């Protein structure tokens, strides 16, 4: 049975899947062959790798202890009043 060459949509899916799970041997080969001849998917793969890095940087900068977003004054006041009401009950 002749193996079907994979197209870009499947290649893109496999590039993404390879970040989260192990590809089967067949998937790996199919992707490798496609990437040999498709410059668009080679670009896509590099961009997805970079996307991961950018998210990693974002994660470090804006989560954990670094609060990039803060409540505005009104929301904060509302919260204080609400909590005070509850505590006074």
């Amino acid at each position, binding site marked *: 049975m002749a193996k079907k060459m994979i197209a870009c949509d499947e290649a*893109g*899916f496999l590039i993404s899947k390879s970040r989260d799970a192990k590809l089967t041997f067949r998937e790996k080969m199919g992707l490798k062959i496609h990437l040999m001849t498709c410059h*668009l998917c080679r670009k896509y793969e590099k*961009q997805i790798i970079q996307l991961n890095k950018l*998210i990693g940087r*974002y994660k470090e900068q804006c989560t954990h202890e670094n609060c990039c977003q803060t409540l505005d004054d009104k929301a904060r006041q509302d919260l204080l009043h*609400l*909590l*005070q009401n*509850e505590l006074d009950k």
Partner: protein
Amino acid sequence: MSSEDKHILQPSSWVDKYADYLFNFAVVRISDPEQAADLVQDTFLSALKAKNSFQGKSSEKTWLTSILKRKIIDSYRKRKSTKESSLDDYEQSINDSKFFNNDGPFKGHWKDESKPHSNSLMPEGEIENSELREIIEKCISLLPENLGAVFIMKMIDDASSEEICKELDITASNVWVMMHRARLRLRSCIETNWR
């Protein structure tokens, strides 16, 4: 555990100490700042109601954050759309027609208007953290259906596929397809916003 090791709750200082931290935590995961603020409010209220169940083994902050996490997941579950069940058709789901031709001689190929343009999304050495944050948060907020929830749980919270499946009531292959569709959109959004 001695009394020095046990944490105690001090609700009157919660807003001062934790409101910004919790708000930031929520907004990264929910995108909508109004909804995020509501969740922070709900978290404090739930925490007050549940204060007798606090055992002091974790810090106040950890405990409050875990209540918020639960509320965030509940909001993801509410958001879930019926479209997600159609993801079980492999061919249909990987051929996202926004990005790939789905019929004709170029079936499965990149559409001209959606193809990647270069090896790099942006010159990452040149971008400020605040600019990066803006672009990423904007692009994540534009993700449709529950793609954002899956992407955030995986990439920001480092959740395993099993956890995501359990919390959002989806299959492992749904997770892969949704991550793929999220990445297609994020890549495109970031490249467009940067150029």
